[in-house]
């Protein structure tokens, strides 16, 4: 109160600007509070020797950049970079449009697609029509020409409704399109990117029955024909996402097994050339997304369909999977948020003992904890994506994001079932589906242990 009196009796300009540091902390605090609650006439504030910070540190003023402050600021201007929650206008619009599309078009079909283990072709068509299947592809190739972050936001929004649909979009964009875009010659880019952006689904074929985490132990072979114009592919691929509906396949095969991983080469293969789609896996989660066993029996592929250099397939796979992991992190992030949104809404509606179950502190603290963890996953994911866009080193950030987001997704969706109680355990509610879908996050595009190994090896480099 003393401060208030002092302040109101004296013109602001006559207040010694060095007063605050010499007085007691309590006094100083009340001064700064009163200064923020007493609006000064503009002519006074304009002639003020210093802003509020001179009378006591006000957190708000100290952190705001100059353009947003009306009063003149005598503190040196702080040009801090923006927070991670800054998006371009296009990114904001994309998020909004994908959110609507997911809720209105995909939402009503989620349960049926999960039960029948089939992706509705209308949904895949919708993804193409919305431009969601060529997010980073150039306009010249029929794509949307947006940023990597745009792809991440799209995957996140789709996952809030159905992680099966989001993985279809994610693999198609961040693995298939990106491999062609970044490593393909002009011929494969011109021939395949337009189709992939408008109506042909793509698939990324690396894993094999005997090579999962040990990806470069792959046994599919590609033998160069004596004419030098074609390769003959033989072997099989396993756990291939999108393969049930895809027509274009990026296939990793070894041109000379004696060279080990240095023989691995990436090929763009059309289904019509003899790719056989064998068994479709029956899975725990993301059941609407097709995962099949593929076999190649003397499939003849033109040499010009080699993507990147011969023998450099391992490099392509490593680089593409590094960024692909950010996509999976986004999928797990969206999944966690989707499960959380559903269950918390439910908990504030469901009444027991005369009040919503969400009003119990025991529940509320759990919500707060999980919300915090989802936030950590979001920050890791967005930051990894921005690092990638800025052309900075992002491998470790991506590994951490994917590892952490998959853990958060499991926890959030698991608790979401508990929060919904008995009905959450039934297949009538989507929360159990989120939980089943979450389990794949710790497995594909590098298991959690592979992510930890990546992080650990990097740590070892720093500390030894």
């Amino acid at each position, binding site marked *: 109160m003393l401060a208030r009196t002092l302040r109101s009796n004296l013109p602001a300009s006559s207040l010694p600007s060095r007063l605050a540091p010499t007085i007691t902390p309590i006094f100083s605090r009340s001064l700064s509070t009163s200064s923020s609650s007493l609006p000064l006439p503009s002519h006074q504030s304009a002639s003020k020797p210093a802003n509020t910070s001179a009378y006591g540190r006000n957190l708000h003023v100290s952190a705001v950049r100059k353009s947003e402050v009306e009063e003149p600021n005598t503190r040196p201007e702080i040009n801090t970079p923006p927070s991670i929650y800054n998006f371009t*206008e*296009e990114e904001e*619009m994309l998020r909004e*449009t994908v959110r609507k599309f997911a809720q209105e078009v995909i939402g009503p079909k989620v349960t049926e697609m999960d039960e029948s283990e089939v992706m509705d072709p209308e949904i895949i068509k919708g993804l193409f029509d*919305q*431009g969601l299947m060529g997010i980073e592809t150039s306009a010249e190739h029929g794509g*949307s*020409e*947006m940023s990597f972050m745009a792809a991440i936001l799209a995957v996140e929004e789709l996952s809030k409704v159905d992680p099966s649909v989001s993985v279809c979009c994610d693999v198609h964009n961040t693995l298939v399109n990106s491999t062609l875009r970044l490593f393909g010659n002009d011929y494969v880019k011109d021939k395949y990117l337009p189709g992939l952006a408008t109506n042909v689904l793509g698939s990324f074929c690396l894993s094999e029955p005997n090579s999962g985490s040990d990806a470069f132990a792959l046994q599919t072979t590609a033998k160069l024909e004596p004419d030098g114009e074609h390769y003959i592919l033989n072997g099989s691929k396993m756990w291939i996402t999108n393969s049930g509906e895809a027509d274009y396949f990026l296939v990793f095969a070894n041109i000379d097994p004696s060279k080990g991983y240095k023989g691995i080469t990436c090929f763009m293969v059309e289904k019509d050339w003899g790719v056989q789609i064998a068994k479709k896996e029956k899975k725990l989660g993301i059941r609407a997304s097709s995962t099949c066993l593929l076999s190649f029996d003397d499939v003849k592929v033109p040499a010009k369909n080699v993507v990147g250099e011969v023998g450099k397939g391992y490099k392509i796979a490593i680089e593409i999977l590094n960024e692909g992991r950010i996509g999976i992190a986004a999928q797990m992030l969206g999944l966690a948020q989707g499960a959380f949104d559903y269950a918390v809404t439910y908990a504030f509606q469901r009444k027991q003992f005369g009040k919503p179950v969400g009003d119990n502190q025991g529940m509320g603290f759990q919500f707060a904890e999980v919300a915090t963890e989802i936030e950590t996953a979001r920050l890791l994911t967005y930051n990894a994506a921005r690092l990638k866009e800025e052309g900075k080193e992002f491998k470790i950030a991506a590994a951490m994001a994917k590892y952490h987001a998959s853990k958060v997704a499991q926890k959030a969706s698991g608790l979401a079932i508990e929060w919904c109680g008995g009905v959450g355990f039934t297949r009538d509610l989507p929360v159990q589906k989120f939980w089943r879908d979450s389990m794949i996050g710790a497995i594909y595009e590098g298991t959690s242990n592979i992510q930890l190994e990546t992080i650990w090896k990097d740590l070892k480099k720093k500390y030894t």
Partner: protein
Amino acid sequence: MIPSRVNLINVLVPVKRAIDYAVKIRIAKDGKGVDTTVKHSMNPFDEIAVEEAIRLKERTKAVTSIIALSIGPAKSVETLRTALAMGADSAVHIVTPEAPSPSSNPEPVNVAAAIKAVIDRSKAAGADKAIDLVIMGKQAIDDDSGSTGGMLAGMLGWGQGTFASKLDVDKASGKVEVTREIDGGLSRIESKLPIVVTTDLRLSEPRYASLPNIMKAKKKKIESLKPEDLGIDLSPRMSVLSVSEPPKRVGGGKVENVDELVQKLKEGGIV
């Protein structure tokens, strides 16, 4: 051949940035409005209007250009950008002061006057730029006034087809047919251009802005105007005294048998 006048329809679609339909509305602390620090999006009826304008363009090939117009604070640009991403060709933004200035959310009569000013300006710019058709939402979901469209038609001296559930424009004759859902059936009215049409819920289903169109929208022009540039005044004639929540529902009681029920109803003067 010189194109006839009708071949050059310019459509104006006024769009409002309103609180998103899915947001739970809360009364503001001062009790004179609602909390506006929430998600906003294009007024759903305006979205239908944008969609219908685009469909008209695709269907009849009689539309030269679709101009989106928004009157509101700086953030209304987002709403215009959405209209452009859906398929509008250009946009005009009449920038109002930020809330809590009373002019930040102008009254229908002022909005109608502002729209009229934009139309008058288009006429002055030449016959090929003149606006001949306004398609707009029948109401905004925030204030539910539902009067701007009618006022605008009155001010312009144009025909009006309000609450349209179907719209047809005949390219050759310039005749406009508007179908309206009324109690007990459909009413069809015919008019000539120019006309103001307001949209009902079933006129069309708005499309999603596709990603390539979002990118294209970036390159489309948004003209920014101040109310003074058009010689209009947006200051309000009314002031809000108070805004309050509807009374909370009170739980009922249980009765043992029919007699007791009848007695309770009698006590309440219901039977």
